């Protein structure tokens, strides 16, 4: 496909399919809810027509044909030539599903997709061209259609909203009267104008806006210089004035007075220019950050359809409402919210909402209510998934807790409702009697909990037996800007996200206690060990002040609280985070980078990763905590290294080098052999070649990174391949370092090994 101003035509087509597919879904559901109202049909025709036109441009003939038949079928309904039957809506929804699949395809996969779906498309084209019947045609699958998660926008392309999106939508099965009239798919007054912007360009714009704001704040530096200049002029004038009344001095006095006046005038001009620059820079910066925001409704496009299909499948009646679709949310957060919301909604449909008969027996209306709400609250995004179903019985949770011995019976008996509901977030904990097709696949509640934690948020449950359940998700509005504590460690400025810091403590050094020679202190009745941040991050220095005070960051949850000793605190800042340069590979303990108010780089710490390093380091002796007295810990330990290379010569060279460095070494003759040895034993480091028989080094590293046992195993690739793309492939696969075999001849190999696993004990 040709390229158009940096945007691939197929990418543009995918964007169109995504947008119009959402409009088709929404319009068809509205039409289904009220077939007497033809208002949605015009929007549906436009959507099908647009997809047809776009498919013609990129040359996907089967899609042109299908979209054409969809459009024709709608025309017949609009002209009253045929009725809009449930079977016709099903066909159109099935066709929409097929079309929206395209938005998730890569261009290279298109021929295979077209071939694989040819029969289905032909069947639909035939069915759509035939007169509508009340029953589903033979071409349609008899199994109910379960909506797939809505295809997300390409992560490389951001959609910038320049006006407000559509209003909330309702979904109600046809058998139940709708309290709110569904809206047409596209109402002209509510049309959303969007501009597709390459995400890299947007990020670059944000960085430049940040730089512009920083530049605007440089005035105090300039002001100091101008004050110095004024002061020197004043002194010069005083010297001249005291020198007498000679005519030539009179001229000098006049010149000096003119100079002082000019200086004052230009200082004023400069000051106002700086102020305007700073103001514009700050506004620009906030506007650009704002452009990363997308309305919450963008994440909900597929949900009405999913709920409609689930309701049909489960034989339930549900009125689904979305409130707060206009709530702005960072696009990265929005993308991460899809899976948790999908799970919670499926969970609500499967376990929360009762069947109509059961609801009537319980004195409720046959149609259940399921609401998805989003709003900003106290600087956070709050999302609620609320049903008026059967609720969660805390006594069933209590019984499970006791059965599974998660708590002693005595403790379990005392647990309150809120505490009991928390157990639902434990992995594998469920009160459901059976795992079902609807909510038993995909992510579980534990993963919902984990995703929220990763996003710096939380989730809680409110439930009343018989009355319903609400899952309340609270998370930051944006990941682009984080509030962080800036600290000094070994002369460097590092940022720790405030959401990940439990406490900031400054103590007199003698408040630290000694246990087995290591330092600790007491906080809330709990002993907390002290580790040097500089040691953890391999930055050198001891991170402990010599003025008798110690600055400590307390991180980690209950049971693993740890204090990191830093040189000092520099305050709190809002930082615009950006990814770390991929050429650095994975840097342990570092999540991202930013630029501080002084225009200097600052690294944003990954506290979760630091905690993993701490756990690992403490268990294998690499980290022992800050020693009392000398304030230095012994970080050295003997490590076990696996060397994988199909060349016996290289294997032996590496084995000798690593042994000389004091490590125990095992060897593997190819990637498969290495994989087997890693699975069978415990290793601290893998050193691997790339080109090997049976399984190459890149495949090996990818396999390791997919396996939770080896996610954090340090890996160094050592290869003859030294092109930038080879290095990038190795690092992208998940290697921590990529070296060429020339590194044996200098100290690079040894230094890299020491960086990855520390120096060996003597």
């Amino acid at each position, binding site marked *: 496909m040709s390229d158009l101003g940096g945007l691939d035509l197929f990418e543009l087509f995918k964007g169109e399919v995504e947008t119009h597919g959402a409009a088709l879904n929404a319009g068809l559901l509205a039409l289904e809810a009220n077939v007497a109202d033809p208002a949605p049909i015009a929007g549906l025709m436009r959507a099908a027509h647009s997809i047809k036109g776009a498919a013609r441009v990129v040359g996907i003939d089967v899609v042109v044909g299908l979209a054409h038949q969809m459009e024709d079928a709608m025309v017949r309904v609009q002209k009253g030539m045929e009725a809009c039957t449930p079977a016709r809506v099903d066909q159109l929804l099935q066709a929409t599903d097929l079309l929206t699949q395209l938005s998730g395809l890569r261009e290279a996969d298109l021929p295979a997709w077209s071939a694989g779906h040819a029969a289905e498309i032909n069947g639909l084209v035939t069915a759509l061209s035939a007169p509508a019947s009340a029953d589903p045609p033979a071409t349609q699958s008899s199994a109910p259609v379960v909506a797939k998660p809505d295809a997300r926008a390409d992560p490389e392309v951001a959609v910038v909203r320049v006006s407000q999106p559509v209003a909330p939508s309702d979904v109600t099965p046809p058998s139940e009267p709708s309290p709110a009239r569904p809206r047409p798919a596209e109402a002209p007054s509510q049309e959303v104008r969007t501009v597709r912007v390459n995400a890299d360009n947007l990020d670059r714009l944000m960085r430049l806006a940040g730089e512009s704001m920083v530049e605007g704040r440089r005035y105090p530096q300039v002001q100091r210089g101008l004050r110095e200049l004024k002061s020197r002029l004043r002194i010069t004038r005083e010297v001249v004035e005291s020198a007498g009344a000679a005519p030539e001095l009179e001229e000098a006095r006049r010149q000096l007075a003119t100079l002082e006046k000019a200086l004052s005038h230009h200082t004023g001009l400069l000051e106002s220019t700086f102020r305007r620059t700073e103001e514009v820079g700050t506004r620009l910066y906030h506007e650009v950050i704002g452009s990363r925001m997308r309305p919450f409704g963008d994440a909900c496009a597929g949900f009405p359809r999913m709920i409609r299909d689930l309701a049909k499948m489960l034989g339930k009646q549900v009125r689904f409402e979305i409130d707060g679709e206009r709530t702005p949310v960072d696009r990265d957060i929005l993308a991460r919210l899809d899976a948790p919301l999908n799970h919670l909604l499926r969970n609500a449909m499967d376990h929360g909402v009762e069947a109509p008969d059961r609801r009537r027996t319980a004195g409720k209306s046959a149609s259940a209510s399921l609401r998805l709400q989003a709003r900003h609250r106290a600087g956070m995004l709050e999302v609620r998934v609320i049903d008026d179903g059967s609720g969660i019985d805390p006594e069933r949770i209590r019984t499970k807790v006791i059965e599974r011995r998660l708590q002693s019976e005595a403790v379990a008996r005392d647990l309150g409702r809120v505490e009991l509901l928390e157990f639902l977030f434990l992995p594998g904990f469920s009160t459901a009697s059976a795992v079902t097709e609807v909510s038993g696949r995909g992510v579980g509640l534990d993963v919902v909990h984990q995703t929220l934690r990763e996003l710096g948020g939380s989730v809680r449950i409110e439930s009343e037996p018989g009355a319903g359940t609400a899952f309340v998700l609270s998370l930051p509005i944006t990941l682009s800007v984080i509030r962080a504590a800036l600290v000094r460690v070994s002369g460097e400025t590092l940022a720790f996200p405030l959401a990940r810091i439990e406490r900031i403590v400054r103590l007199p050094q003698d408040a630290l206690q000694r246990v087995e020679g290591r330092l600790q202190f007491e906080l809330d009745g709990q002993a907390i060990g002290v580790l040097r941040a500089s040691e953890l991050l391999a930055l050198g220095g001891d991170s402990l002040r010599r003025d008798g005070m110690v600055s400590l960051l307390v991180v980690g949850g209950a049971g693993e609280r740890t204090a990191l000793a830093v040189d000092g605190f520099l305050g709190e800042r809002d930082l615009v985070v950006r990814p770390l340069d991929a050429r650095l590979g994975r*840097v342990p303990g*570092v999540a991202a980078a930013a630029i501080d108010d002084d*225009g200097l780089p600052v690294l944003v710490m990954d506290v979760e990763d630091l905690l993993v390093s701490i756990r690992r380091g403490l268990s294998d002796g690499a980290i022992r905590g800050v020693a009392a007295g000398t304030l230095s810990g012994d970080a050295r330990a003997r490590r076990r290294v696996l060397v994988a290379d199909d060349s016996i010569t290289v294997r032996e060279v590496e084995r000798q080098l690593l042994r000389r460095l004091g490590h125990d070494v095992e060897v593997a003759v190819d990637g498969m052999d290495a994989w087997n040895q890693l699975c069978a034993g415990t290793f601290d480091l893998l050193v691997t070649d790339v080109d090997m028989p049976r399984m190459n080094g890149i495949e090996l590293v990818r396999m390791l990174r997919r396996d939770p046992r080896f996610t954090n195993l340090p890996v160094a690739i050592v290869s003859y391949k030294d092109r930038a793309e080879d290095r990038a492939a190795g690092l992208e696969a998940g290697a921590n370092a990529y*070296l060429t075999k*020339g590194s044996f001849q200098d100290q*690079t190999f040894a230094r*890299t090994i020491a*960086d990855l696993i520390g120096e060996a004990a003597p």
Partner: protein
Amino acid sequence: MSAHTPDLPARARLSESAIEAQTAALAAPLSEDPGALQPLLCFRCAGERFAVSAQDVQQVFAALPVRRVPHRDRPAFRGLVAHGGELLLVGSLERLLDLGPATPPPSPAARMIVVGPEHHGWAFQVDAVDGVVRTAASELAPAPTTLRRGLGTATRLLAQVEGEQVAVLQTEALLHGWEGAAG
């Protein structure tokens, strides 16, 4: 891009051997004009004069503070610098070429030169930038074998600038060395 319809009658007038000869001529690598002027950015570092192809230079700016990266304490890699709203990786020319200490003493004349492809460039600090000179390719002499074949060297050619011999550094070798140190 619009498709071009081949002019079949015109092609038919050429013999097969003529077509082959023309194809071979088109496929042959372009020969460098020995008289063509090559722009070189000349600078000083650790007491020596160097040059890089000006075509490989993205930008030059006054030296800025460099922040170190945890777990990346390697001689040829200094850390990160922020300029123009971008974060750039900073390499050490001194340590890469074994010229002297990694961090040059601060000086008002110190500059940072960014070389390499856009968005994947490397910054390195030099004592001063002398400017751009244009040198004929014929005036570039090969560097001695000790440099051309030496491990960890980046000089392949020597240029005569203002009567002095200046080592022309191969950008690819610099990038290769720094990327090895950072990853």
